[in-house]
């Protein structure tokens, strides 16, 4: 196995941190650590980068134990959430930094390689710009180029898109995915954004309170969540009890029709454009429904409807909770 985390533990005050993590990552894959703040995902990334030392456990890269190596000696690079670009250096010198110190190159040797990296991220022509003159998206690209320039075996990304506005976030997400495919570099990505996780990853590790609660492909995580926690953190979910068993029903799997004698009343309706979110009420029972398109947007508060689920191909599965 390319990268193995074995029994990693790092506890901070108030029980925060990482309790016990075992994880295997294949070469060239894109793995996302997903969870709310305080779940241990950033701690994991810091352990991988060598910025902190674990209380116990090991990190093996290509079979070699790198747990005790300081960051400067690890073939691992990080793209920081805040980018952490050097404000006293220009763009080119920022990208050259790792080439000079990690790879021990002279500045003259490093420059052409750095220019190549800048071209890859679409920043040719910005070599002499100061960091402060760049937009958030451009800084993000410099940070990416700087981290990749050292030719790391693993690229760590700590919520790299969280400081960008919505449109740019989606654009850079696409670019990142393309880049990873093209270069085949192993990436470990940390986020609390389920959309990012689902769209980018080969494998998602959902974390809660310092442990990995489920590991799997995006489809596995979304369609077969192992717990209520996973189901509600990745996507929205209804928990419906039938015959003594609790089923998870995704709101988009709920269908409904106008019916004056139906069981449900529309309690709220939120028009989102492409889809419309409803809350349906039946006595104390409330279920969420998510309908698409123009037709799906036609219900209004107070309407009586008939509703159901499970009649479609991709319908809900049984889940013991």
């Amino acid at each position: 196995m390319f990268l193995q985390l074995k029994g990693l533990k790092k506890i901070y005050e108030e029980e925060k941190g990482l309790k016990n993590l075992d994880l295997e990552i294949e070469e060239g894959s894109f793995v996302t650590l997903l969870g709310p703040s305080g779940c241990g995902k950033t701690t994991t990334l810091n352990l991988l980068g060598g910025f902190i030392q674990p209380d116990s456990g090991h990190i093996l890269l290509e079979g070699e134990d790198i747990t005790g190596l300081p960051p400067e000696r690890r073939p691992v690079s990080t793209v920081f959430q805040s980018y952490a670009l050097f404000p006293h250096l220009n763009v080119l010198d920022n990208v050259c930094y790792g080439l000079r110190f990690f790879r021990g190159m002279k500045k003259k040797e490093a420059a052409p390689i750095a220019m190549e990296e800048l071209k890859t991220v679409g920043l040719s022509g910005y070599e002499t710009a100061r960091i402060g003159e760049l937009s958030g998206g451009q800084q993000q690209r410099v940070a990416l180029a700087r981290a990749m320039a050292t030719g790391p075996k693993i690229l760590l990304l700590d919520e790299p898109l969280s400081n960008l506005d919505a449109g740019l976030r989606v654009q850079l997400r696409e670019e990142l995915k393309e880049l990873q495919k093209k270069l085949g570099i192993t990436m470990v990505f940390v986020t609390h954004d389920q959309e990012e996780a689902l769209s980018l990853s080969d494998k998602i590790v959902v974390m809660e309170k310092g442990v990995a609660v489920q590991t799997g492909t995006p489809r596995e995580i979304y369609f077969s969540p192992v717990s209520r926690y996973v189901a509600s953190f990745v996507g929205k979910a209804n928990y419906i009890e039938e015959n003594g068993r609790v089923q998870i029903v995704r709101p988009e799997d709920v269908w409904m029709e106008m019916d004056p004698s139906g069981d449900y009343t529309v309690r709220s309706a939120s028009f989102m454009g492409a889809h419309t979110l409803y809350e349906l009420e039946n006595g104390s029972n409330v279920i969420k429904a998510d309908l698409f398109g123009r037709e799906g947007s036609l219900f209004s508060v107070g309407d009586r409807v008939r509703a159901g689920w499970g009649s479609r191909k991709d319908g809900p599965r049984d889940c013991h909770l």
Partner: protein
Amino acid sequence: MNPRTEKRRHGRYAWAELGDRLILTLVLAGIALFILYPIVSVVATSFFKDGHFTLEYYRELASGRSLKLIRNSLWVSSLSSILTTAAAFFIALAAYAAPGRIRRFLRRSLLFTMISPPFVSALAYIFLFGRRGLITHQLLGLSVNPYGWHGIVILQMIGSISFASLMLLPSFDHMDQRLVLASRDLGASPEKTLFSVILLLVRPGILSVLFTLFTMNLADFGTPIVIGGNFKVLATEAYTQVISTANLGRASAISILMVPAAAVAFYFYYQSLKKNESAGGTDRNAMDGEPAYTLTGAVAGAAWTVTGMFFLVMALKYGNIFLSAFSNTASGSLTFTLDYFGKLPRSQWNSFGHSLVYSAVAAAVSAFLGILLSYYTHRRKIAGMRTAEFFALLPYIIPGTFFGLGYVAAFSHPPMYIRGTSAIIILNLVFRQISLTNKSANAMFSGIDRKIEDAARDLGASRLEVLFGVILPLLKTTFATGFISIFTSCMTSVGAIIFLISPGKNVASAELFQSIENGRYGVASVQAVLIILVTVGINMAFMSLTKRRERGGK
């Protein structure tokens, strides 16, 4: 990566780790040896006579003569501290709330008037208001006696108002401007807002200034010697004990007596610092850098009267010094002359050279050490560094004479016999000021992304390469401003140094003091002018240098 380069890289990192430890050790050793050891030495000296434990020095302090000195000290220090703080409050208020251009002018003038060698005001005061004073005698035909406690109070006020105003100003700038806006919005008059909101918000700052001044005035021996006449205070007693009778024990006991005041000053100083620090971060400045308070009515009247009077006094002071350095009134009329400069003996020029070299070296080393201390304490968060940082703050709080005395007590005998060398003077200057850059570096660091060192190491930089290639370049301006203020203070201060100079190693500020003490006022004003010109020159050179670099950077 092939094994050979891997091995070479490993060696490089190992050396860097070692170098990093070495630097940290040097910083800690410096604090232990040149701050703690001298302080402990003073305490020990006060309790031991000829190798035996004794309370004799303290018993002497309770005798009738000493009690009178203590009363005198308390009276003069309290009065001048309270009056200075009151004046500084109005000047700082004006410098905070005045409209744009006037505000900048006031702030710059306050900085400029900080550059004042000791006793320049004393010189001017004697020239203008003395027995043969230009104003009292020649203009008004009076013959008043300028000497006595009132002279001390006036001179201590003139000498410390700029400092006090500048120290108080951040309290105004950092108060939550929205509270002031809210008070006005809710209909409070300017006077009401001043007393019910602003005064409460800047109170920690006021108390801090008040007690700091009290400590400074308590330890000030120079002004009472020059202008006190027969009025003696504790600090003069400590000074004469060392200089004329070499009685270190008694001088130490007197210095220790002044520590409680310093401790109270520190407490309030620390409180106001914490307030200011916690003020950072959130968007409290609702006014885009403009003050939320406008000067109107009675408040404006008071503020501008005090500020105007202060600048009038300053104009008189500097005008007089320059006039008397370049002119001759012996013939009855003012004539321009450079005679005094020509007559300045060679030894004086040497002292001047010493001052420049000592101040420059001390300022550079001290600023550098302050930044390193801050780096190891707040960036690397090495255990125990906070205690070290606190110790580094001590020389700044305790009376200057105490710290000077500490060096005499600690370094006049083996194992560290360095009295009479240039090193002892430079070391004293370095460690007295170390907390100045330390604090501004702390503030600077809090604005720099914590991840930046991680990023540099992640990219293969060793500990030392991070320190010298990333950290220090980012703190260039902190270093430059630290250097200027330490240099200025070294050029113009006399408190601790006076005990450490020796023949052939004299400095300009001490020579100036000796000239005044011996009544050679003409020479003294030339020395004062030289100190002022050089210090102002270096200040301006540095300012334009950093400005150009900033512009070049953009």
